[in-house]
């Protein structure tokens, strides 16, 4: 069968199977097994555990559970609340100050957590009830946290950047740096929208709290642990102490220590809760990564990957039309699949095309990540939506969606800006690590 036709058949069946309610990883294993048996024979099943193990057998991947522990341990303390409270006391005069503070807290927290749901949970747990208490519209309260949480995978450290780095052999240190400025840009856009939205909905409905200067100064020390962790991790990563993949362990240990010593997270029960939640999220993600690895072996073995890449490469379209089409594809894929699955399946096919069309792979990683962020707050599989739903079960999913929609538009604006000014992504890594190759 023609590989392109076969590719469409595989694509269609994969979509059907994944929509059936089977878990994503098992669905991918199932589709791979079926097509391997049909086209490579029964014996290729022998290879499945071997490939599964091989895909996980990589030092860079191990940083994923560690970056998750980082976020989870701090998230289980009051630290998230301290963070937005500190910001709030300083930003009280800004319209929508509390929303802006929560967004700022999300951005700061993202610098410690590699995952989006963790960021969402850490800030949202305290932030959403507080915003509702003060009379902010429920749409804005939930939408802003859902969107702010997505920064977890854009602002370094980032699990998706690690996965992209492994899949495409690009430097993880460089990828991390590339996310910084776009992350700041995105959070500024989010803030701008929130200020406008709260102003429009009538500022007076939200209760104003005023703080004295001593209130403002008094809370500053509570932000110090954050600064210490972030500085510590940056020093480990770029100061010659450890490679980016090793740094995750330093971060995890630092965060655990800070949670135990400063936030008195000492009872075995709460420590186990941190470890349990991190293990659950890590295993879920790593299972998808390994299964997606088996899936991409199947695609490659059936020559589908190579044929699609060659086919796209032969299309004589304008490179920006190509980029628009790729973005469309990624957003649609992100609606349904978790980010790591999309990256692992799409990167090997898209990267050669991207590079030969003259786009920078580091820049593309940022665009790809923002696309994945959109997927995190869109149905039917929006991990952040579930988290918000868990925090505020009485708010309907529809309201959360309506609230996050404007933030999706902000993300699209950010993608557009990145296309106009690629330097937003590439300038910082070039500055810190020398020009790219």
């Amino acid at each position: 069968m023609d590989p392109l036709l076969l590719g469409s058949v595989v694509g269609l069946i994969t979509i059907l199977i994944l929509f059936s309610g089977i878990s994503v990883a098992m669905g991918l294993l199932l589709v791979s097994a079926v097509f391997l048996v049909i086209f490579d024979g029964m014996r290729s099943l022998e290879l499945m555990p071997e490939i599964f193990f091989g895909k996980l057998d990589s030092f860079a991947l191990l940083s994923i559970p560690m970056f998750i522990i980082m976020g989870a341990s701090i998230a289980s303390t009051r630290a998230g609340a301290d963070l937005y409270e500190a910001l709030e006391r300083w930003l009280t005069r800004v319209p929508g100050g509390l929303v802006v503070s929560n967004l700022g807290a999300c951005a700061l927290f993202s610098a410690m957590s590699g995952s989006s749901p963790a960021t969402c949970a850490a800030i949202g747990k305290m932030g959403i009830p507080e915003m509702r208490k003060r009379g902010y519209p429920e749409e804005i309260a939930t939408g802003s946290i859902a969107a702010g949480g997505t920064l977890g995978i854009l602002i370094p450290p980032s699990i998706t950047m690690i996965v992209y780095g492994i899949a495409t052999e690009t430097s993880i240190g460089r990828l991390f740096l590339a996310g910084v400025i776009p992350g700041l840009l995105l959070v500024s856009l989010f803030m701008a929208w929130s200020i406008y939205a709260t102003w429009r909905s009538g500022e007076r409905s939200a209760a104003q709290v005023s703080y004295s200067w001593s209130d403002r100064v008094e809370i500053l020390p509570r932000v110090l642990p954050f600064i210490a962790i972030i500085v510590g991790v940056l020093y480990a990563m770029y100061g010659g102490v450890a490679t980016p993949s090793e740094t995750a362990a330093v971060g995890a240990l630092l965060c655990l220590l800070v949670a135990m010593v400063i936030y008195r997270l000492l009872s075995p029960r709460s420590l186990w809760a941190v470890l349990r939640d991190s293990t659950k999220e890590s295993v879920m993600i790593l299972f998808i990564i390994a299964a997606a690895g088996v899936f991409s072996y199947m695609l490659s073995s059936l020559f589908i990957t190579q044929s699609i890449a060659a086919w796209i490469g032969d299309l004589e379209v304008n490179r920006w039309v190509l980029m628009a089409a790729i973005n469309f594809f990624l957003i649609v894929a992100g609606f349904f699949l978790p980010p790591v699955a999309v990256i692992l399946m799409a990167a090997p096919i898209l990267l050669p095309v991207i590079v030969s069309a003259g786009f920078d792979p580091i820049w593309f990683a940022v665009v790809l990540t923002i696309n994945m962020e959109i997927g995190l707050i869109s149905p039917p599989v929006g991990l952040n939506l579930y988290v918000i739903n868990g925090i505020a079960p009485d708010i309907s999913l529809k309201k959360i969606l309506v609230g996050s929609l404007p933030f999706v538009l902000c993300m699209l604006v950010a993608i557009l800006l990145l296309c106009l000014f690629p330097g937003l992504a590439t300038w910082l890594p070039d500055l810190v690590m020398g020009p790219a190759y």
Partner: protein
Amino acid sequence: MAQERTGGARVGATGVIRQISEVSGWIAATMILGAVFLTCQMIFIRFVLNGSTVWQTEIVVYLVVAATLLGLPFVQKHKGHVNVDLLPMWLGPKGAKLLRVATTLSSLCIIGVCSFYGYEYWHLALTRGWTSDTVTAVPLWIPYLALPVGFGLLFLQLASDCADTFFNLSEKSNGAV
């Protein structure tokens, strides 16, 4: 009476499986924590003591791979594996039920296949005496053991979930009659 006894045995069996999955999760969590400490130890040896760090990377990787596999039944037990249930929503309650039976059975199939060939691969490494190609020369049957054990326990947990839903459904329909 007889029915009660089989019901009790079933609850006993699924209870034991759930316990095993929980313990497997603890082991996985401990392994991840161990990987964190070992990596920090490696950085300390290298950065502070300027010593050799030959074996750590490899062991850390094996710990995380094993943690992933042993964590599978635990995450299954806590319904932590992500899924997309578009078709069941679209099909309505009756179709959804049928579809759930189909997806559970196919999950069992595919995980069964992985357990079986995982066992074979482990056995091959054991009988042929494979080691890793490093100075540490880790006997590969040790890390590969996680394949049959992890997939095997996931299979059991899936089967137990399956049994639970099946019996719940039939008990409910009995009650209705």
